[in-house]
């Protein structure tokens, strides 16, 4: 396969759109060996692992390609056309179909999400949404296995839409990444904050004209020390479970310290010149809040623009080896994101699939055309992310060659909470370990088998993934090249 090789100028120019004049520099040629297959010192290019998630599924009859096998894009339906129409990425994307859970229906959105993301089940208090699940998500395993190998973060967790489910306060930003305890970890939904985490000096804009001097950093460290000191005094007065809670809180102060120290940390890459104020989407990071402190229906999210910026940030973070694992939630499970940019879509996404203000699935309006439009738009957003990766050359290939990304939603058809025939894609060749360009059928097997195949494929020595009914112990090895 001959791949068009982008010149560095081209790569930089494509990245500069909306970002700024100077960008992080990916592995320089001088750093690469003569064959372009590894870094000059012989160290192989890193393998990256990604998760892309979107809520509320697709319209399966307008999304799945008609036949299976290679070159799926020649038979693509409208819902996947955003990928099928892009030659630069489509031959590295697989479409997966005919994977179903044993129990095919009757599960709420958040439970369905826990199954596909963590192969696990929801174990939250009283079955309440978004509590603890019974095990870690797939990305948690890779970020733990590869901890410390990348320069800045063990993983970058991105969210695009901030919308929750309408009328409630489901915390969708607490529901894609699950740690070893099954507690959900937050996603970064602010482009500005994501940028700061990757390239910033950790000092908020409103902190006055302190300057990021050693004296200021020392003072900030003394603040953290004092908080720890107060905690130590308080701890002696507490019961065991509160002590644990306090210890957990104090351990998180490491994030603040990393923030303070980060300006000093060396990076192989030039810091992009993306100053606050470059675009409206970059600024759009405040959560609209109702008077009682809940996030409200958000009507003006600049999803297209934000997705472009975040896609570029992910690509830069991978290119500079600031992280090797990323998660990317376009919009959360069950969210009522308003896709105002789509003509004819007037309701929140979840409301378009079914209105669950009552438990009745019938007798409620459903707007399947809107659901289809949204799914197609979301695939375009995913394609933009993949193009960002494909646009950065690395040795004899590009970032997409060195990545394996699993993309899915909590259901294929959310209107009936159907857990059959899940909607799943993979993207990237994972350093040649995975196939690309195929429509593969699972013959009714467990959807989590795909996650296990990826985890084993990237080198984790595990026998299975997940807990409970959805646990997988049989990797879907058709995925391997």
């Amino acid at each position: 396969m001959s791949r068009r090789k982008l010149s560095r100028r081209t790569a930089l120019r494509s990245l500069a759109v909306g970002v700024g004049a100077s960008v992080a520099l990916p592995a320089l040629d001088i750093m690469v060996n003569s064959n372009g297959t590894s870094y000059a010192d012989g160290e192989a290019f890193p393998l990256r692992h990604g998760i892309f998630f979107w809520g509320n599924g697709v319209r399966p009859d307008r999304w799945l390609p008609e036949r299976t096998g290679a070159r799926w894009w020649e038979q693509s339906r409208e819902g996947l056309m955003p990928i099928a129409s892009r030659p630069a990425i489509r031959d590295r994307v697989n479409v997966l179909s005919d994977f179903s859970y044993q129990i095919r229906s009757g599960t709420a959105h958040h439970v369905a999400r826990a199954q596909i993301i963590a192969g696990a089940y929801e174990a939250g208090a009283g079955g309440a949404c978004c509590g603890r699940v019974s095990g870690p998500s797939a990305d948690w395993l890779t970020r733990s296995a590869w901890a410390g190998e990348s320069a800045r973060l063990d993983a970058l967790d991105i969210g695009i839409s901030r919308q929750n489910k309408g009328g409630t306060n489901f915390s969708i930003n607490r529901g894609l990444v699950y740690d070893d305890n099954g507690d959900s970890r937050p996603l970064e939904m602010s482009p500005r904050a994501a940028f700061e985490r990757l390239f910033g000096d950790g000092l908020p804009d409103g902190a006055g004209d302190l300057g990021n001097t050693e004296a200021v950093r020392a003072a900030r460290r003394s603040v953290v020390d004092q908080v720890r000191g107060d905690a130590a005094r308080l701890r002696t007065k507490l019961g065991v479970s509160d002590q644990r809670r306090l210890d957990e809180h104090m351990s998180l102060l490491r994030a603040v310290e990393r923030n303070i120290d980060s300006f000093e940390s060396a990076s192989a890459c030039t810091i992009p010149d993306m100053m606050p104020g470059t675009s409206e989407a970059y600024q759009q990071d405040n959560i609209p809040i109702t008077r009682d402190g809940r996030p409200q229906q958000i009507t003006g999210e600049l999803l297209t623009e934000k997705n472009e910026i975040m896609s570029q940030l992910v690509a830069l973070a991978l290119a500079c080896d600031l992280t090797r694992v990323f998660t990317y939630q376009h919009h959360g499970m069950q969210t009522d994101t308003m896709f105002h940019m789509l003509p004819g879509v007037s309701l929140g996404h979840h409301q378009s699939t079914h209105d669950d203000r009552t438990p009745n699935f019938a007798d409620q309006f459903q707007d399947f055309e809107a659901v289809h439009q949204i799914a197609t738009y979301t695939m375009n957003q995913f394609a933009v992310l993949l193009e960002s990766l494909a646009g950065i050359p690395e040795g004899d290939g590009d970032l997409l060659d060195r990545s394996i990304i699993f993309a899915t939603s909590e259901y294929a058809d959310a209107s009936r909470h159907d857990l059959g025939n899940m909607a799943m894609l993979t993207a990237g060749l994972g350093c040649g370990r995975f196939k690309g360009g195929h429509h593969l059928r699972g013959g009714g097997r467990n959807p989590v088998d795909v996650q296990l195949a990826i985890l084993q494929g990237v080198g984790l020595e595990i026998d299975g993934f997940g807990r409970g009914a959805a646990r997988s112990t049989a990797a879907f090895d058709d995925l391997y090249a």
Partner: protein
Amino acid sequence: MSLSMVACDGRIDPLAEMPEPPIIRPPSETPLEDLPPFSPAEGGLRPLTRRQLEGAFRSALESSELEVAQNLEPDPAPEHRFRFIGELVTASPINEFDVLKLDQAALTSVAEAITEEQLRCTPSSADDACVDDFLARVLESAFRRPPSVDELSDYREIVRDAGEALDFVAGLRFATAAALQSPWFVYLTEIGEGPADARRLNSHEFAARLSFFLWDAPPDEELRDLANRDALDADSIRAQVRRMLADPRAGESARQFFAEWFGYDAIETLAKDSSVYDFDRALGTSMRREMEGLVGDLLAGELTYLDLFTTRRTHLDRRLADFYGVDVSALIPEGSTEQVGRFEAEEEGPGCNADGLDPAFHNLCSEGNTVGSSFNVPAATSIRITVRAYGVRAGDDLPRVALVIDDAEESQTDINGTEASPEELEFNVELSAGTHDIAVRFMNDFYEPPANRDLIIDWINVEAIDGNPDTTVLTEVPPERSGFLARGAFLATYAKAIDTSPTARGLFVRERILCGRVLDPPPTASTELPPRSDSVRTNRERVAAHTTDPTCNFCHRAMDPLGLPLENFDGIGAYRDTDNGATIDASGDLDGVAFDGATEMGEVLRADPRVALCAVRHLYRHAVGREETVDQERLIRAVGEEFAASEGDWTALIEALVLSDLFQMVRVPEDEPVEEEQ
């Protein structure tokens, strides 16, 4: 916890573990003599909510203007639970973002609030007396107790180190930033004194619990002073409760409590199908305002809690009055308009600049281009915004414009106007007093040379509507709307987008008013109501046809007879006599007591002793941040009796609750011995 799920067709949910009856009997049905002796709820750490954190920031920094909550992570709130119950708030632990954002908020807010002018002196060394004065003041407010000598000394060292390296104002800022992240600040620490199973809150802990309960803010100087002198006895507590309830902060806190308890907190954003119902954000606001008026009456003693079920009292604005069919023309004068401001777009200049960010020029060429200006609205009021615009057409669609207020898109519309005959678009919105950015945005660019769609804006005119439709008056609703269950906020919230929902309404009454509990429908059950037909015309008939199965009926009989009496009110709460052409049968029953229609249901609920007791439970959960267990049942009933004896007086309930050991005591879990301080 996992509950047994028996499907309507009798299958067992494979995820189920243990059986449990569909309606969990509340402990109120246990005879008093069978209840265990009183034991208080667990104490320990209770994280402040975002609102409480904001109140605490403002208090510690003596700045009522600070806005901190916007920059913190939202409170997690499981559905159907109270966000403000601390125990549930911490179902998800504090995470990395909380900690990072708190650090940033602390650094930002000290920079904003601590300036040389606001300091009462300018320190020249860390040993300056004013450093100690300042630290003592900040730490006492932040920790809700006087700081210890050791703590003062620690914080003075921060001032010393940073002060010598930078300057002493910066030193005080960093010391304060530490206090604002200290666990003593972030958590309510309710540890108490005495034996592990019955520890009494000390006076500082009690004052903090009381203040965050009534105000969502820490104790003020008067309450702190009483706590410092250990002078909080029953009489002074009563006096403080009355003083604090008269403060506007108590009203705000109570409004939020009721909005969440009664579930109308999302009334403005309900999804209603516009082809069926004429419902918009403004009507939702009117409905909220009516409920807030009634909550205010409750706090002021104009209404009792039991009155809420039968009263005809209301606070109507013109919009809701029209909706209810109440004539308020004599009470609210007709509106006149007053000019707020006008923005004229400039025609000269590049207009279509690449970024689309220049707000001055009138031709918007790219998607997302926005034009507008800031307007100063003198008082909270209804605003009429008129925009003159026209489009240059290209492609299949008309140019589409969105009204953008303070960076949020309010509504969108297509532009029919052309250069020859521009269009004047009118938008009506409500705005608070202050400066607002009002703008319009081009939503759907189209460009395939030579076809090019543009949007041209000539001007934006902003007027205030005086004597406006948002002024509310105290009046009465028609008899059929007696009680809050027959008002819009409740009825619209508990309904579907295209229909009513007798089951959802009945479930609310069963769970939130009577404190019964009904299981979720089994996951494998079909919960589809049969479609309307010639033989199954009304919702009553559909529900009946749906629940013929005894398994389904077992739960539905606890809900539907409490929702069907409200069928005279449609999915947004408008009155109706018929459903699908058939006369509505509004009969219902409450556990064997039959009644007909909303008004009679209100009378029956008012007379049911479970109603007052259920209010005690909700207020208790809110006040102490825990759900009650059977260990607290004896005292909950005792408070309930006092509440009932007062015939539902809300202030009497608050007093009885805060004077009770329910509120004043905590315990340490038995398996968690307290280590004594070294």
